[in-house]
């Protein structure tokens, strides 16, 4: 693992939002701080797929968007190929923009209905003189071919496509500038089961052909395990566990990861009915006012006194296996 090149390094990244305090009835506005991403550090190696899972509201989408500077981070560093891009101005950033792109969740909302497919794809190409109009057209056809669409599709509008095809257009657009790094934000959640597999296999093929690096965000844990090399689990803005995807699924350490794994429905009646399920009580607390200490302590079946007072450190307990939990802090 160590000889692999780090493409993106994220150091103590924080993204806070100011939100209106709805409970304050006074005249003046009062704001609260929502800690969507709170002190997250991890590395993404070149050519790998890094999976990011967690329940809604845990900050995984915010993290994905902050990493490619669609949001300005509140604090921390994002080191992309050795350069800290977290504080660059938008002008300085423009040289890095073409190296990173994004595929969005909803293929119905993320394509402009009034643009043809070729316009959509051309718009994402670098805006300089390196390409002539003819080159651009040629590139559109290449890209369409790459994602399994044909040249007839270039002149059509998004409404003429099915969900799976639209997501292919989204993938083609993300490849238009020859990026190195793509953030896939729930690219398959809006698609049917049989189509999901098509898109996932397409993403895998492209990664193989073009040497892409993915940050793959999803709440479908079995799909994340299938596509990812390493997986990070988030809870309330913090990363609670990170490991190789096989290790994580075979030996989850953090009680939250264990509960999450046991809650995945398995398409096998005998296994599904006999397996032991760890049911976590209650729901995810509000990120505006998270619990003290470990954010999971009020739902955790193994919480102790210490958990409600001290924030656990995100520590490497085994080779490449990081956990933020007091259960493992003393003994290792």
């Amino acid at each position, binding site marked *: 693992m160590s000889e692999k090149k780090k493409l993106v390094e994220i150091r103590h990244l924080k993204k806070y939002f100011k939100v209106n305090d709805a409970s304050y009835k006074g005249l003046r506005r009062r704001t609260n701080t929502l800690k969507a991403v709170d002190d997250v550090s991890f590395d993404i190696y070149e050519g790998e797929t890094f999976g990011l899972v967690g329940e809604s509201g845990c900050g995984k989408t915010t993290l994905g968007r902050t990493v490619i500077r669609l949001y300005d981070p509140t604090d921390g560093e994002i080191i992309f190929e050795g350069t800290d891009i977290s504080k660059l101005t938008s002008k300085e950033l423009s040289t890095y923009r073409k190296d990173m792109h994004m595929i969005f969740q909803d293929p119905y909302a993320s394509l402009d209905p009034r643009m043809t497919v070729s316009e959509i794809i051309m718009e994402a190409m670098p805006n300089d003189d390196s390409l002539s109009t003819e080159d651009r057209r040629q590139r559109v056809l290449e890209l369409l071919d790459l994602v399994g669409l044909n040249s007839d599709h270039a002149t059509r509008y998004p409404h003429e496509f099915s969900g799976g095809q639209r997501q292919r257009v989204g993938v083609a657009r993300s490849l238009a500038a020859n990026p190195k790094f793509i953030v896939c934000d729930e690219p398959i959640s809006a698609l*049917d089961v049989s189509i999901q597999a098509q898109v996932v296999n397409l993403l895998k093929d492209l990664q193989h052909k073009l040497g892409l690096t993915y940050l793959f965000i999803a709440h479908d844990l079995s799909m994340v395990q299938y596509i990812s090399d390493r997986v990070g689990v988030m809870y309330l803005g913090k990363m609670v566990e990170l490991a190789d995807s096989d290790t994580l699924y075979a030996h989850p350490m953090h009680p939250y990861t264990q509960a999450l794994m046991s809650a995945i429905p398995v398409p096998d009646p005998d296994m599904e009915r006999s397996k032991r*399920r760890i049911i976590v009580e209650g729901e995810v607390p509000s990120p505006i006012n998270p619990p003290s200490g470990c954010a999971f302590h009020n739902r955790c079946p193994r919480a102790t006194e210490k958990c409600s007072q001290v924030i656990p450190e995100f520590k490497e307990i085994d080779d490449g296996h990081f956990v933020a939990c007091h259960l493992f802090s003393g003994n290792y």
Partner: protein
Amino acid sequence: MSKLLEVKNLSTSFFTKYGEIKAVNNVSFDLDEGEVLAIVGESGSGKSVTAFSIMQLIAKGGRIVNGEIHFNGQEITKLTEKEMTRIRGKEISMIFQDPMTCLNPVFTIGDQMEEVLKLHFKELGKAERKQRCLEMLDKVGIPNAEERLKQYPHELSGGMRQRVMIAISLLCSPKLLIADEPTTALDVTIQAQIIDLLKELKEEYNTAIIIITHDLGVVANIADKVNVMYSGEIVETADIRNLYYNPSHPYTWGLLKALPRLDMKENELQPIPGSTPDLLLEMDHCPFFDRCEYAMECCRQSKPEYYETGENHIAKCWRYHPDFPKEA
């Protein structure tokens, strides 16, 4: 023993300016008391329209064009709207996919729960109604029920709202509960809670459940038998174990192979090629024909019938025709 629900040759169509869309096409199935039937299929396969046909809540432009629905020995497709109102919500009730939109935002939880009782149990007094609502909220695992009755839907989380929906649907102890994608909008840990709740309540009230979902993992957990729908038709009906361990229809094979499993190794995921057919087109061949890797000449020429492939197990595929050559 007579069946609780029998659906015979049900067809529901929507009439649009482009032509007739056969959303549900000649569908038959039945259900015993206390049994859980799952209807699985992709979007547009007609699973929700089947449920709405049973409730007779079909959206504008659509109607049942053929078939019978017998509930508790009564033919309900011929009932007037007034007679149906007495059954709907009391004998058959339904929970919907999106708990965010199906509760009315301008009424309190208490108002919305009591409304059901006011309609179906006119003899109950105010105090008794409230008592029942409190008991029900308690049953579905909502703490501080007294407080919750006074709250509005936006004050509850997604999981809590779905619990409220389940509480409302079970207030009149219905014989049949139709759950249309009850956990699709929820996170996995909350989904596990809701599925467990449905199972407990089924045991307690002996309610029959029709669960509509595209998640074959959820089905494996809760269902007794399964209808697989494709393009408005049921292509396979089987007991739960048969469906997973001995599936008959190529579409079911495809669905099971397209699912990632935790024990799966690299490159094992096999998608079904193509996409679902356009329901506007008149089809005289097997609807799965152009996506099926086992398609034969006869599949293109005519639609297959149901053939028995095992005990309580039927599939609509030419491979099970008595004349189909058996593999050695």
